[in-house]
């Protein structure tokens, strides 16, 4: 390889060196970018521009080249040009300011594409290149490294944002919701990341635009669009634990048509952290993702696009069960699929109006079969089928540069059929939303909006939103928002009909409680009724009011600091409570709107450009989470625990209260990103810290308060190196969890993972 590099340089020296390139570099304001560095990528040719920003590079052959232009305080950019005999190109290059790089970022946090700087909401953007650089395979790996996002393990790999669980975070792919939750968790490991253009993280409730689940915030994944012409890429990676991933993207684009296909196969041998049990912590699995996209521009005014997704996964596990006092080994095999189809018709009658008609249909199916290993007979099987359709219209009216009105409405139909649910269930919902974005003056950005949802199973709901951004000085920006969020009762809370075969208790969803209690009573299973089922009110959606306040400081070109304070007040939290005592001494439970919780905190993000090609990032979140009722009881001296050495009762003090389970008071991350332009490689070293967190109540007082009830914090270190071997081939190497950290309460950390891979593109294409 070295020989080849040498050879190419050598041949450059020798051949006809008549050709040259000239150019002028300016900064954002059009002033000369004095002494900027200019390098011809893939060669050793480079110069420093003069005081006036002019440069000249001689001794080049005919061909297509890329220039890399960098300057302290500015973002490095690449510029393509072609050299032909007899002509000297004159390039005019404008270098963006380093800290203004975000200026170019378009976000859809307000459901209209806008410059992130003009949106007075908390939006963090992770670009596709960053995802590629870190060598991530699945979405959870990407989000784990973001400030204030906590990966959790509960029936899948979930997420926590501002101290709120997976159930309260809406995950969108290209603006449409991903469905398929197990116990509230949407498994992030279902989402491959190789075809991601960017990820928008919107903190604070967005129910005013998206309705249910957008209570803590929204993660919007925007998939890649093909570049012009035909393009193809192939990426293969291998990791510890016999994990391999192979993905390819094919795309074509011309003036009218764009089409792309992304295919990914992930296989993992799984791992086991619990030696004593036969079942594996993470069983072996094989998953395929297909993501076709087609868009056609009929005219400047009409555009049709159809996106699709198909995901299928199968996994194999074993388990020991005890039957009549004997241990029997069973096979535990699972299958799951999700798919969606998303046609969108976009009408642009003129540059002031945009109408989108969307129809989104998606399905999620799981199937589990437990069979005896000795004779293959069936022990148990269960399934879960969910189907969701949404028809929606959205109208955007660009009154002028400063005023955008958005109106929309839609209808959803949702069907669920599952082993533990009574019958096939149909839900219907209708909603409408309105939003007004305006900038009364240059320094002020405002968004006002609201959404009204009606649903066939629970009470109607209005979610308002108000957000204001104000540029106090060129280097100080303030942001404040107030919003209402809500989360619909989930299927199990409405429909579950489950009697535990070994323990004998029963859980019934609130929609079927009355009917089911009548049946239990008829069968003589009820000893006494604690809550008359006819008095049970229609369950309400969990709702929140959230406040966010932030400051962004840019004291120098090299430093950006964001500090934000947040508070979520959630009411009507749904909890299970007994409604009757059965004759076997066990209870019948149903779901009620009971608790009130608060999550609040402060977070900090810092970005410092140490050198032109070396960046340091820091994130930290302080989180205080509490159940209002529990805190009240502690203040009144009504929550107790025993001193385990004497078993005497003590009153729990507020300073001992550990908040809601699974929340870390302190968490953060630090990143060091280095790019070497000359030798075409980059290195990223990222550290993740999670402070101690409560895992559950062991001493029976319903709160986390003693040391054994906490998991110890940990630090994880990830390293990735990418080296461009040639124009079309990149080698990647790295290690996740370099320090080999494990934690008995965090099953998603198997220990150190080494990885390596190759990323191939069509030659002559930009990365």
């Amino acid at each position, binding site marked *: 390889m070295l020989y080849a590099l040498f050879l190419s340089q050598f041949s450059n020296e020798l051949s006809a060196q008549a050709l040259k390139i000239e150019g002028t570099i300016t900064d954002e304001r059009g002033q000369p970018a004095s002494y900027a560095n200019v390098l011809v990528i893939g060669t050793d040719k480079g110069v420093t521009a003069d005081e006036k920003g002019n440069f000249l590079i001689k001794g080049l052959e005919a061909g297509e080249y890329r220039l890399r232009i960098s300057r302290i305080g500015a973002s490095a950019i690449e510029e393509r040009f072609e050299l032909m005999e007899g002509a000297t190109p004159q390039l005019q290059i404008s270098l963006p300011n380093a800290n203004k790089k975000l200026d170019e970022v378009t976000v859809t946090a307000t459901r209209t594409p806008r410059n992130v700087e003009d949106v007075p909401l908390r939006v963090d953007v992770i670009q596709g290149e960053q995802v590629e650089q870190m060598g991530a395979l699945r979405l959870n790996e990407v989000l784990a490294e973001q400030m204030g996002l906590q990966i959790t393990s509960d029936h899948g790999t979930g997420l926590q944002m501002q101290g709120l669980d997976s159930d309260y975070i809406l995950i969108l792919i290209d603006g449409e919701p991903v469905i398929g939750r197990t116990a509230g968790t949407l498994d992030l490991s279902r989402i491959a990341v190789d075809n991601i253009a960017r990820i928008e993280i919107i903190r604070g409730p967005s129910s005013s635009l998206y309705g249910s689940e957008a209570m803590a915030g929204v993660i919007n994944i925007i998939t890649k669009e093909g570049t012009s012409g035909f393009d193809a890429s192939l990426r293969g990676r291998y990791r510890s634990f016999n994990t391999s991933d192979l993905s390819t993207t094919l795309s074509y684009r011309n003036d009218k048509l764009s089409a792309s296909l992304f295919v990914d196969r992930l296989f993992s041998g799984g791992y086991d952290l619990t030696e004593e049990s036969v079942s594996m912590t993470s069983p072996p699995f094989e998953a395929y993702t297909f993501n076709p996209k087609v868009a056609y521009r009929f005219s400047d005014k009409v555009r049709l696009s159809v996106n699709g997704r198909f995901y299928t996964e199968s996994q194999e596990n074993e388990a020991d069960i005890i039957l009549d006092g004997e241990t029997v080994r069973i096979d535990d095999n699972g299958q799951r699929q999700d798919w969606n189809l998303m046609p969108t018709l976009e009408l642009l009658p003129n540059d002031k109006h945009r109408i989108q008609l969307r129809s989104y249909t998606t399905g999620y199916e799981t199937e589990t079969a437990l069979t005896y290993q000795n004779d293959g007979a069936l022990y148990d099987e269960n399934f879960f089928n969910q189907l969701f359709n949404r028809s929606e219209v959205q109208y955007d009216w660009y009154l002028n540069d400063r005023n955008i009105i958005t109106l929309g409405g839609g209808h959803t139909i949702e069907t669920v059929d599952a082993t533990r649910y009574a019958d096939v269930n149909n839900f219907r919902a209708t909603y409408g939303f309105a939003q007004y974005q305006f900038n009364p003056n240059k320094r002020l950005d405002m968004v006002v909006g609201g959404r009204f949802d009606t649903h066939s199973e629970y009470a109607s709901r209005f979610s308002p939103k108000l957000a204001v951004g104000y540029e106090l000085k060129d280097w100080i920006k303030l942001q404040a928002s107030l919003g209402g969020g809500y989360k619909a009762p989930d299927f199990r809370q409405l429909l579950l009909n489950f009697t535990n075969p070994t323990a004998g208790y029963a859980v019934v969803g609130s929609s079927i409680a009355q009917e089911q209690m009548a049946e239990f009573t008829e069968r003589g299973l009820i000893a006494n009724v604690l809550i008359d089922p006819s008095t049970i009110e229609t369950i309400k959606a969990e709702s929140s009011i959230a406040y966010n306040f932030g400051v962004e400081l840019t004291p120098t070109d090299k430093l950006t600091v964001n500090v934000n304070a947040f508070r979520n007040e959630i009411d009507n939290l749904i909890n299970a409570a007994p409604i009757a005592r059965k004759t076997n001494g066990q209870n019948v439970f149903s779901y009620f709107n009971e608790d009130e919780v608060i999550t609040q905190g402060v977070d900090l993000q810092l970005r410092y450009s140490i050198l032109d090609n070396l960046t340091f990032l820091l994130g930290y979140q302080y989180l205080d989470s509490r159940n209002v009722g529990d805190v009240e009881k502690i203040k009144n001296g*009504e929550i107790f*625990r025993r001193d385990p050495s*004497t*078993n*005497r009762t*003590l009153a729990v003090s507020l300073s001992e209260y550990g908040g809601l389970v699974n929340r870390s008071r302190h968490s953060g991350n630090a990143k060091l990103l280095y790019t070497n332009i000359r030798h075409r490689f980059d290195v990223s070293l990222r550290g993740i810290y999670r402070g101690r967190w409560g895992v559950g109540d062991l*001493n029976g007082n319903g709160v986390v308060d003693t040391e054994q009830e906490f998991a110890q914090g940990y630090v994880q270190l990830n390293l990735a190196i990418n080296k461009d071997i040639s124009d079309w081939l990149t080698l990647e190497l790295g290690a996740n969890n370099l320090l080999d950290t494990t934690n008995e309460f965090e099953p998603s950390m198997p220990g150190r993972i080494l990885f390596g891979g190759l990323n191939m593109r069509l030659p002559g294409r930009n990365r």
Partner: protein
Amino acid sequence: MKTQTNLLNLLLVLALFGFVSCDDSDTTEEIVPLVEETAFDVPADPDMSGGFTYFSFENGIVDSTQANSDAWDLAFSGTTILTNGGASGPGQGAGLVVAGIFENVSEVQENELKIDAEGSPAIQGSDSQGENIPGWYTYTGEAPSGPQRAIIAVPGRVIIVKTAKGNFAKMEILSYYEGNPDTTTDEFANFATRPASRHYTFRYVVQKNGGNVF
């Protein structure tokens, strides 16, 4: 913080003493120092034959031949605790489970105490959620974390007892298992190493002067 709490406790105790002594000066009751005692491993029918162990705060375990007398104050069998009164015995016994800290329960409201009825003892076993009556234990059942199928004395529950002879006592049950074990350990969670159940350890204070203040 710790010293502050201790100081506060001391002040409370002093205030309480002041209150008690004031009370004493008004009446002519004899001053009897309150002594906290602990009963260890009182068996409660460990062989599950259905019998009771009779216990007197003054004399400890008494023979079951005296069941029909006022020689005992409490009778234990499994999780059932009887007082010597009403349907359970010839004495003046009554009882109630209240929420609070043992040290802080300072006064008995006699009219709130309950008397044993047939099948419904004054001392409630597990919480009665419908009627909102606190009980002294919880059964962990198939708890997802912590020990399963264990009887755990609920922290912060104090049992007020009227003795057979009409004095007031307060008691806190510390354990239902032999040797008053730490119930948060793996040894306790494991059925093979869990100590035998049906053995009560409790601490108590009896006000022998007939008053209702501790």
